């Protein structure tokens, strides 16, 4: 019973973090900032839920699987974020107006607009 309660709490918290990440995706002003939400909250939320599953079943095999999933998420989510962020940046994205410093802009040349978007405004980050 303790397990169940604990698992339930973790599950709910995790799902709320997932919700936060989703809301963040919707609300935050630019691509990079949305990625903050997705990477952190999504990973944490999902991680918590997986832990909840492990606790709920309280079984070694499941636990190991849960650990595997979490390790995987922690390892891959930031890498994915890095890859998207990098690609996005180099394609030329519209950064949030309040972005006040960009040290990457000096080291790489950026070109063109987004070939997959008629709506996007190919304003260069600078």
């Amino acid at each position, binding site marked *: 019973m303790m397990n169940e309660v604990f698992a339930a709490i973790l599950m709910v918290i995790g799902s709320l973090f997932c919700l936060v990440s989703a809301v963040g995706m919707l609300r935050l002003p630019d691509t990079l900032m949305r990625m903050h939400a997705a990477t952190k909250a999504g990973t944490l939320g999902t991680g918590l839920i997986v832990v909840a599953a492990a606790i709920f079943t309280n079984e070694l095999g499941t636990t190991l699987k849960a650990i595997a999933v979490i390790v995987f998420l922690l390892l891959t989510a930031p890498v994915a974020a890095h890859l998207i962020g990098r690609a996005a940046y180099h394609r030329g994205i519209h950064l949030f107006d309040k972005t006040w410093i960009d040290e990457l802009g000096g080291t790489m040349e950026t070109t063109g607009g987004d*070939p*997959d*978007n*008629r*709506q996007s405004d190919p304003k260069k980050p600078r």
Partner: protein
Amino acid sequence: MQQSNDSAHAAGYSIIGLVSTALPLLLFAGLCFMWPQVVRGGVYAVQWPWMPSLDIVLHFRLDGLSFLFGLIVTGIGFLVTLFAASYMAGHPHTGRFFVYLNTFMLAMLGIVMADNLLLLFVFWEITTIFSYLLIGFDHESAATRDNAKQALLVTGAGGLSLLIGILLIKTAGGSLTLSEWIASDHQIRQHPLYLAIFTTILLGAMTKSAQVPFHFWLPNAMSAPTPISAFLHAATMVKAGIYLLMRMHPLLGGTPEWMGSLVVIGGVTAIWGAVQALSPSDLKRMLAYTTVMGLGMLTMFLGGNNTASLTAATTFLLVHALYKAALFLAVGSIDHQTGTRRLERLGGLWRAMPLTALTVATATMSMAGFPLFFGFIGKEIMYQGALTEEMFPQFATTITLLSNSLMTAVAGIILLGPFTGKRPDHLENVVDAPLPMRFGPGIMGGLCLLFGLVPWWVSAYLIQPAVHAFSVVEKEVQLAIFHGFNTPLLLSVITLTLGGLIYFSRKTLRPAVTAALDAIPLTGQRGYDITLKGLLATAHAVVDGLQNGSLHRYLRITIGVFAITTAAVWWFNADGWTLRLRSADLPLSHWLLVAVMAVAVLVVVRAQSRILAVCALGMVGGGAALVFLVYGAPDLALTQLLVETLTLIIVSIVLLRLPSLAGPPPGPVSVSRWVDSLVAVGTGIVVTTLCIAITNGTIDRQLTAFFEYNSYIAAHGRNIVNVILVDFRSLDTLGEITVVATAGLAGYALIAKRRQ
């Protein structure tokens, strides 16, 4: 015309040709051997099963009619082959020529000896094919090819009509065995299908025997080498239609439909051919029209239902075959020796080609119907036959009179034109044809006279046995040199007189005839041209509109047809519409899931960005996986998700190599796009309603129950789905991995770099 100008061949002959004469000669001899038996009314018959289940029996029978035709086919066949042995010498394809000729002859023998109507048809069509090959023998000329095609199409069409007629006889309960007809009581004539049977068979006969309005192929067929014109298109093949009508007589004859149409069609054909024969300057073409006339006469007499008419037909058949084959071959000789068949370029040849001149003389005399010649006998009996026709005897008599007069005139032209008068300069060095070429026409010319001298013999040994074979004879009609002073004799005299008048006024008549013919708005030839043009235009109109290379159109029709047909078939067969919608107590999450998938579909449809479409598709796929998951299909969910991911990888590589979705800026939606939407929505509705209707019912789960029960016990697996895949339905999986493997090979074939 592939003409041999090589002097080495001018007097020569082809060895193949001479060898080829053996076959007809042997067959002719064989027939003669059977002559006594046949004359006594006996028959020879042999029979092997071929396709008895379809009423096709290899059933051959030699009776009087077959015998008469057989003699004509083999006898004239022999003489023509002999002629051709010289005529064709030097032609590059002599071998083919004689193979075709002999095969044709065998097929023709098949026609006249077959006692099974379908068997007859088989040979009938073989003669069509070989006629085609022979007409087109000198195929380098476009006109020749067109003429061959025309003959094939016209007679082919008739053949198909005949086939339907034959099969209709079977459908109507008739027998296909010809020899059974004379004795049977002919239910067919009262059958509702009688008219259809008669019409279709008549069409077959008309096309083959060049009856108006299908006659036009025959003059055009004169682009065949002359021996072919003599053999196929004068003496034998064109007579196949006549033969067919004779054979059909006991089964179908004697009705008003039969008698009326045969007399009219034959009469019109006869007069049409006779008039046309006046105008051409090409001797062969002229002869072709006289053949048309002859065929018309034969048909006309077959319209009678009395022995006189039928005897007239049978007699004239022989008369015509003899003089026409002789004339064709003689014209062939003239052509061969002088290089031309045009009247205006010929003249005064009788000295240069005396034997040919003699042959032509006897043949034309017979044609014109001078007394003592076989043609005279024929003409007498013709008038007798015409006068006794049951339907339209006056018409028949008038036609006979006019046609015969015209024939007399044409005979005059053919005889007097090339051989008398002044010989043109370019014909100075002409000599008579080589011996093999003189032999055949000479024999036939001789027979034209000989048979005219012994009509009683011809009557007893050739004509009467034939007539007995296809009709019930109450009173024999005898051929004789002189029947006494009677109406036929009077008509004969009028004929000769009128013929003479026409001959002497030919210079004024010919332009008039030509003008009159040109004034006719629709002739068979023009009808043929219009039909072919119309066919091609229709084909283009229909096909170019459908198969126009536009994938969009193909898809729209294909999908639209599916949606409309399904809906229509369902609509017309449904008894009531009770679709129950089952969506009770669905959790909110499921509703949301389905909703987001539906929206994703819309997004894909509207997407102007490839990435958006791909991502939204990912959403749809992921949603589908979740649907699988929440309804107890983890394997499916897993596979779906894995496939989604791999698809993304492939997309990410391939999409780069495809252009963006950019189209013209979204303007007003075109009508075409509305149609597309209609098709799309319609298809969606059809699928939805089908799915709802089906899930409204219950499903029998006995298969699944079996799997659930046996999966672990008998197949050692706890994952039932996997056990189905690798055991219960492993053959599916074997096929499936083959598809996968093939996709690998196929993809490899498309993308791999060429290796040295």
